[in-house]
């Protein structure tokens, strides 16, 4: 039985983890900055990275659905197992709707997103200042929720590894490593 995630799943997980850390940090930092060219540049970078995550999460979901992950540790049953399953799907939900709200709020605020300054992403909604503000609040609230869930996710992984001493974390690490 396979005891590891596929290399593709691992790469997507860690690449997206890095990007999401960067996006979260940048997002919270840049929104309080006074207006400057640097701020506008950071916003553009944040949007480009966000669109990239939005593309990657669909690839990842497609991969996840077509490639069965390794089984959970035998110690997982009942409510804990359900919580683990629900938690992971919630992470996917956040990864889809957070970039989506970012994209929509950009459009509502009247700033089209142009991926890497080259590829314009269509505006799904027209300019609407009030809607833009609501979407911005939603985007930020969702990110607080996402951040909390990521903390829970990481704590759970450490708990499996260091407390229960099972293979849960190892399934997502490179095969050669023996931590």
């Amino acid at each position, binding site marked *: 039985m396979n005891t590891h995630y596929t290399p593709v799943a691992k790469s997507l997980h860690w690449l997206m983890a890095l990007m999401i850390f960067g996006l979260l940090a940048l997002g919270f930092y840049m929104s309080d900055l006074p*207006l400057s060219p640097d701020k*506008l540049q950071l916003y553009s970078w944040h949007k480009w990275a966000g669109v990239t995550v939005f593309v990657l999460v669909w690839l990842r979901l497609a991969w996840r659905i077509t490639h069965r992950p390794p089984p959970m540790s035998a110690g997982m049953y009942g409510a804990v197992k359900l919580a683990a399953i629900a938690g992971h799907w919630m992470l996917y939900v956040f990864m889809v709707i957070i970039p989506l709200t970012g994209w929509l709020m950009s459009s509502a605020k009247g700033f089209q997103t142009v991926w890497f300054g080259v590829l314009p992403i269509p505006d799904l909604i027209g300019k609407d200042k009030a809607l833009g503000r609501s979407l911005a609040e939603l985007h930020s609230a969702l990110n607080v929720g996402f951040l909390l869930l990521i903390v829970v996710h990481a704590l759970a992984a450490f708990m499996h590894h260091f407390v229960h001493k099972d293979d849960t974390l190892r399934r997502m690490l490179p095969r050669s490593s023996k931590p």
Partner: protein
Amino acid sequence: MNFLNKTFALAITTLALYAHAAPYQAIVPAKSSVTFSYKQMGVAIDGRFKKFAAQVNFDPAKAEAGKASFDVELASVDAGSSEADDEVVTKSWFNAAAFPKASFVAKQFKQTAPNQYEVTGSLSIKGQTRDVKFPMKHTAQGKDGVLTGSFTLKRGDFNIGEGMWAKFDVVANDIQVNFSLTAQSSK
């Protein structure tokens, strides 16, 4: 009946001739717009000015004799977002407190084709004056007429965006200005 028709047709023609003969002497602000667009990190952003005034004496049939001057109230800017509106009136951009108006004075109207003109004039913003030249189109709308055109200015020529904004990598140098003015013959 035939007589009536003819009279009616004659009346219309007379009216049309009369309307055409009168040069435009004012613009209708409610039916006119001054907009602009620029690029920020490669993203096109639209803005407009809500307040402007013009002094016009322009006869499409005698363009060469035309006269026009145009003032835009810079503080009436809508630069795409409230944050940008607050920013763009400050010292580094328009410095609207010291230079409240942008003005354009036409020096020459040259007809290039029916209802097409080439306009030359000087544009003054923030104490800087530059010559501009652009095509203008005229469309008759009953007694009124709509004058449309656009030109591109370099914000650097007018010190719009100084200091940290002086580089063009985030906010591009080219600003396209578009106007659509409804002109009427009575003041």
